[in-house]
C-alpha cells in the first residue's frame, strides 16, 4: 500500500525535477541486449524521463562481471540478466530480490509462464529470485532429403532409441553420412529423461550424486557407445568450424538442440539447404530444455521500482515477447506469447512445416529439474568419463563408478 503510494508519487517527483533524469542500468549479453534495446522505445513512451543504459558484455564476461559485482556488493545493475547455466550459483548469492514478495508480488502471474522455467528460478531459501524471459525447448532437426535417400521414415527417428539407432545404420549404409554430430548428444538427452520431482540431473534432493545409481546414466552411456561403435557420429563438437561445415554439407543428419537453433540454421549455419530441414519431437518423447534467460533485480539497486517495471514490460507483455521471438529467435517464456499468427505460420525453411507449434508443445511437456551449484562440474566429469568409454574402451561400469565418486567428492565441498 505504502509502496504503491510512493510509486504514484514518482511521476510528480520526476516532473518537478526534470533536469535530474533517472538512469537505470540493464546488464546483458548478446543477443538479449538487442531484445532489451528493441523493447525500449515502447517502454520509454511511458517513462520519458528515464534513461536506460544497456551494458552489453560477452556471455562469459558478463557473468564474470556480475560475479565480481555481487562479491563486492558494488557496481550492480538495476536489471541483471542471468542465463540458465549460472542460475544455480546466482540464486544462492542472497543478493537478488525475492520477486514473490511485495511490491513485486509476482506469484499472481505464475500461471502465465511456462511451468518449468518458472520453477527453475525458484530457490528454497531466497524465493523467486528471477523471472524467465526466453526458453529453449528441445527439438530434433533432421535432413529430410537424407532420410528419403536412406529410406528412413521420420517416425523411426522419434519412436524410441532403438529405432533411432536403426535409422542411423540405414542412413550410414545407404546415404553414407553420419547420424549425429557426437555420441555425447545422445547421452545428454537420455540422462535428462526420467528426472524425478525435486531432483536435479546429477544430484538428488539432498545434494548427493545420482550418477552411480540412476539407471538413465547407464543407459545413456550404453547408447552413446553403440552410436560410436557403429560409426554413426561425426565426432565433431558443437559450435566448432567442423560442426558448422558438417551441417552445411549435410554430413550430419540429425541435430538435437534448443528450438532456437532453427533460426540459426536458417540465418547463417545452413542457409542454402532451405527446405531440406525438418523439425521433429525428440526420441521417446523426451522433453528437455537448452538454456533459457532470466531477469533479476539486485538487492542493492537504487531503482527497483523502475527496474521491476521494465522487467514486467519485457516478460509479461505479449507484444514484446513475440517481437523478441520474431526478430531475435528468443522463444517466449510467457504462455500468451506463444499464441498467435506467427506461431501458426508455416515456416518456409522447414518446407512449410508448422515447426513453432511443435516447439510450443514440447515446451508444455518439460518438467522442471532442480538446478544445483555443482551442475557444471558434474557435467564435465560425466563427459570426461564418457570420452574414456568412447575412445579408450573403458568399461561403462568403471566409468560410471569413477564419475560417481568424483561428482560426490565435489558435492561435499
Amino acid at each position, binding site marked *: 500500500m505504502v509502496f504503491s503510494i510512493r510509486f504514484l508519487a514518482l511521476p510528480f517527483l520526476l516532473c518537478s525535477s526534470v533536469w535530474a533524469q533517472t538512469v537505470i542500468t540493464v546488464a546483458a549479453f548478446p543477443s538479449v541486449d538487442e531484445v532489451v534495446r528493441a523493447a525500449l522505445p515502447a517502454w520509454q513512451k511511458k517513462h520519458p524521463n528515464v534513461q536506460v543504459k544497456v551494458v552489453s558484455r560477452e*556471455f562469459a564476461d558478463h557473468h564474470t562481471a556480475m560475479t565480481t559485482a555481487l562479491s563486492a556488493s558494488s557496481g550492480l545493475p538495476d536489471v541483471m540478466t542471468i542465463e540458465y547455466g549460472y542460475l544455480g550459483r546466482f540464486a544462492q548469492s542472497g543478493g537478488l530480490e525475492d520477486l514473490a514478495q511485495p511490491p513485486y508480488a509476482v506469484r499472481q502471474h505464475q500461471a502465465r509462464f511456462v511451468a518449468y522455467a518458472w520453477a527453475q528460478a525458484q530457490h528454497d531459501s531466497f524465493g523467486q529470485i528471477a523471472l524467465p524471459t526466453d526458453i529453449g525447448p528441445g527439438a530434433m532437426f533432421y535432413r529430410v532429403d537424407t532420410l528419403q535417400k536412406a529410406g528412413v521414415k521420420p517416425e523411426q527417428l522419434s519412436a524410441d532409441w532403438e529405432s533411432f539407432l536403426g535409422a542411423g545404420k540405414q542412413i550410414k549404409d545407404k546415404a553414407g553420412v553420419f547420424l549425429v554430430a557426437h555420441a555425447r548428444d545422445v547421452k545428454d538427452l537420455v540422462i535428462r529423461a526420467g528426472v524425478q520431482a525435486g531432483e536435479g540431473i546429477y544430484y538428488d534432493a539432498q545434494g548427493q550424486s545420482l550418477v552411480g545409481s540412476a539407471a538413465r546414466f547407464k543407459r545413456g552411456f550404453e547408447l552413446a557407445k553403440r552410436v560410436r561403435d557403429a560409426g554413426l557420429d561425426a565426432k565433431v563438437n558443437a559450435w566448432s568450424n567442423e560442426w558448422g561445415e558438417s551441417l552445411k554439407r549435410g554430413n550430419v543428419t540429425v541435430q538435437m538442440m534448443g528450438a532456437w537453433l532453427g533460426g540459426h540454421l536458417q540465418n547463417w549455419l545452413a542457409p542454402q539447404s532451405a527446405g531440406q530441414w525438418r523439425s521433429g519431437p525428440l526420441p521417446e518423447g523426451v522433453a528437455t530444455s537448452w538454456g533459457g534467460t532470466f531477469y533479476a533485480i539486485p538487492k542493492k539497486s537504487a531503482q527497483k521500482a523502475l527496474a521491476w517495471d521494465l522487467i514486467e514490460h519485457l516478460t509479461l507483455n505479449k507484444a514484446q515477447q513475440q517481437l523478441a521471438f520474431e526478430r531475435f529467435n528468443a522463444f517466449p517464456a510467457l504462455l500468451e506469447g506463444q499464441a498467435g499468427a506467427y506461431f501458426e505460420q508455416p515456416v518456409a525453411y522447414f518446407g512449410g512445416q508448422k515447426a513453432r507449434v511443435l516447439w510450443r508443445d514440447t515446451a508444455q511437456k518439460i518438467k522442471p529439474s532442480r538446478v544445483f551449484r555443482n551442475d557444471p562440474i558434474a557435467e564435465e566429469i560425466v563427459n570426461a568419463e564418457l570420452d574414456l568409454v568412447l575412445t579408450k574402451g573403458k568399461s561403462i561400469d568403471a566409468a560410471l563408478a569413477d564419475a560417481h565418486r568424483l561428482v560426490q567428492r565435489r558435492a561435499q565441498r
Partner: protein
Amino acid sequence: MTQQASESKATLGPVGWLFLVLGGLAMLAPFYAMFVFSTHERSDIFRVPPPLWFGEHFLDNIAILMDRIPFWINLGWSLYVGIISTALTLLFCSMAGFAFAAYEFRLKKPLFGLVMATMLIPSFLGMIPSFMIMDLLAWIDQPRALYLPAAAPAMGIFLMRQYIESAIPRELLEAARMDGCSELGIYGRIVVPLLGPAFGTLGLITFIASWNNFIGPLIVMRSVEMYTFPLALRSVQSPVDTQWGALMAGSVVAVLPLLVIFIFSSRRLIAGLTAGAVKS
C-alpha cells in the same frame, strides 16, 4: 664504428632465404586470414576450408559493428590508455631498472626479489580484490584505473635491468659523476638516450599488452562508452550467434594501430644510436 656501416646490403645465402621466406609465410597466414575473413559474410567464414581470398562484405561488417558499439569512442579510449600506459611504463621501468643495474644498496636484493616474485603470480585471482580497490578509490569507470596500477610492471623492470647491465658501461657513469653530474642527471642525460632499443622493445610490448587487455576494463568499466576496443569487440560475441564477419573486421581495425606502433618502434629498435661512439 656504428651499426650503420653494415646497414644496407643483404648477404644471405639461398638456403637462409628459403627458411626465412617459408617461416615468414607461416607467420603471415592467420594474419592474412583475419583480413580475408573480415571481408566475408558470417555464413561463409564458418566453414572448412575457410575462404582464402577477399570477399566484398567488409563495409557491411563494419556497419554491423558500428551499429552495436560506439566504435570510435572505444578506439579512442584504447589509444589514450595505451599511450599513457606506455609512457609511464617506459619511465618507471627504466628508473627502477637503472637502480638495480647500476647501484648497490641495502634493500637491493629483497626489492629485486619482490620484482621477480610479482611476475610469478597468475593474475585471475587478483581480479576481485583489484575491483575492491578500484571501488574504494572511486576509480570505477575511469581510465586511470587501467593505466596506473600496471605502470611499473616487473617484466619491464627486469628487461631494463638486463639491457642496462649489458649496454651501458660503468666507466661512463663514473665519468659523468666525476664531471659533477647529479645522480638523477646521469639517469636523464646519460642513460636514457642510450636506451633506444630497449625503449623500442618495451614500448611495443607495453602498448600491445595495454591494447589487448580486456580483463582490466571488464571489471572497471560500467558503460559501453567507456570500454576499450577489445572489450567492445568481445561484447559483440554471442554464445551462439556471433557476427563473425563483423568480429573479424573489428579485429582488423584493432590490429592496424599495433602495426603502426610496430613500424614506429622498430626504427628505434634498429637505430643503434650513439652506442658506437661510447664503446671505443
